[in-house]
């Protein structure tokens, strides 16, 4: 028996959507239905064997509006189930658009991922970090369809090769053939050779090989890439760079962010703190799309990495204050998702 309860209160409304009778009732499945609630960006569906919802079979199942039904599976026969629905209103339009792209692509997100992403967008906007971003890959949803989406806009939807592992903690390339093509080209899509940044949240503790790159592209001596190493080794972010400057580094874990805000230096940050700001004169940016998990060397992918990526971004240069706030926002995001390092 399937019993639909009234929808309960959304975050900014007095009345929730009304759950209606189930359809398609099978031995171990049914379709939950509810009425459209005007203004809802998504719905949260709960299913329980308890009329008081003291336990859950499904909890906070995200169903993107305008869809008003969900097929509930994996049930036990001869059992009474109850379901209820809440509507989410007032969601930031950019966050809602991102959720739409994920679901349209065939991906799905947990409510924790949805909630964390909403908070991330709010934090970025509140700290003047939204506008400088060209591409933000939050790497949520544990699928290629979800992780390929750019949080900032519908531009620069990426594509993964075979050889990636998708998990709730991020995406991990195999180090031999796997890379992610962001389609973002420095010379075309980044505003200025004197204002740019790359960021990469690494969840892998490993002594990097001398030939492993995490993201970027280069052509001849026009570099735009990151290279995270440690253990007596170096870390460098070469942004619009024609020469090399490096900083010492003692871990490959954390949020690595290279930022250029002038023609002379590239600030190397880890977890919002500068590790060094070496002299690296800017040059004209190369015309090869930025890869993640490897480097695009004049159209030939090389320098494959094995570091798990839990966030990456590309955009304009960030000041020290912005970089610090950026780390705070991204780390809060990772902490909500229980994947912070």
């Amino acid at each position, binding site marked *: 028996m399937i019993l639909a309860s009234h929808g309960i209160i959304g975050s900014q409304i007095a009345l929730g959507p009304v759950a209606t009778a189930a359809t398609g009732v099978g031995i171990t499945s049914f379709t939950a239905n509810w009425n459209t609630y005007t203004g809802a960006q998504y719905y949260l569906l709960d299913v329980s064997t308890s009329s008081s919802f003291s336990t859950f079979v499904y909890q906070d199942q995200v169903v993107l509006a305008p869809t008003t039904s969900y097929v509930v599976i994996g049930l036990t026969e001869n059992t009474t189930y109850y379901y209820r629905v809440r509507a989410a209103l007032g969601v930031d339009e950019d966050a809602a658009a991102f959720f739409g792209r994920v679901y349209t692509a065939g991906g799905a997100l947990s409510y924790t991922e949805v909630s964390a992403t909403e908070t991330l967008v709010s934090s970025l906007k509140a700290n003047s970090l939204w506008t400088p971003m060209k591409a933000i890959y939050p790497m949520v949803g544990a699928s*290629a369809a979800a992780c390929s989406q750019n949080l900032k806009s519908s531009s620069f939807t990426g594509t993964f090769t*075979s*050889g*990636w592992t998708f998990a709730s903690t991020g995406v991990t390339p195999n*180090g*031999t*053939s796997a890379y992610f093509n962001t389609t973002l080209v420095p010379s075309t899509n980044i505003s200025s050779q004197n204002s740019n940044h790359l960021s990469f949240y690494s969840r892998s503790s490993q002594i990097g090989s001398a*030939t492993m790159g995490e993201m970027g592209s280069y052509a001849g001596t026009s570099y735009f890439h990151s290279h995270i190493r440690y253990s007596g080794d*170096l870390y460098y972010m070469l942004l619009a760079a024609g020469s090399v400057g490096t900083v010492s580094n003692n871990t490959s874990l954390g949020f690595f962010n290279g930022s250029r805000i002038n023609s002379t230096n590239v600030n190397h940050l880890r977890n919002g703190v500068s590790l*060094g700001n070496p002299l690296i004169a800017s040059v004209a940016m190369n015309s090869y799309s930025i890869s993640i998990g490897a480097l695009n060397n004049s159209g030939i992918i090389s320098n494959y990495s094995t570091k798990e990526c839990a966030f990456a971004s590309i955009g304009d240069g960030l000041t020290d204050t912005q970089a610090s706030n950026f780390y705070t926002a991204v780390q809060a995001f990772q902490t909500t998702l229980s994947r912070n390092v």
Partner: protein
Amino acid sequence: MIGYILTQEQYDQVQGQFINPYQFINCVQDINDVWFFFGNEQDKEAFKDTEYMWLFDLPQGEYIPKPSPPFPHDNRIQ
């Protein structure tokens, strides 16, 4: 690392082909110029119902990579 071994013709047939809008096939050459395909269990699931599932039936072999291009000369800050 163990991978699936392709002939040149097989490589030409699959390289760069999309199995869905967000994933495509990338093969790499080993140190002896033999083409390799790497696919994990998640890939196997993604390849289901595509015309490229046969890649997972190819003979397997040990992959020894070509040397990656060297990075720019290090210039450590003292």
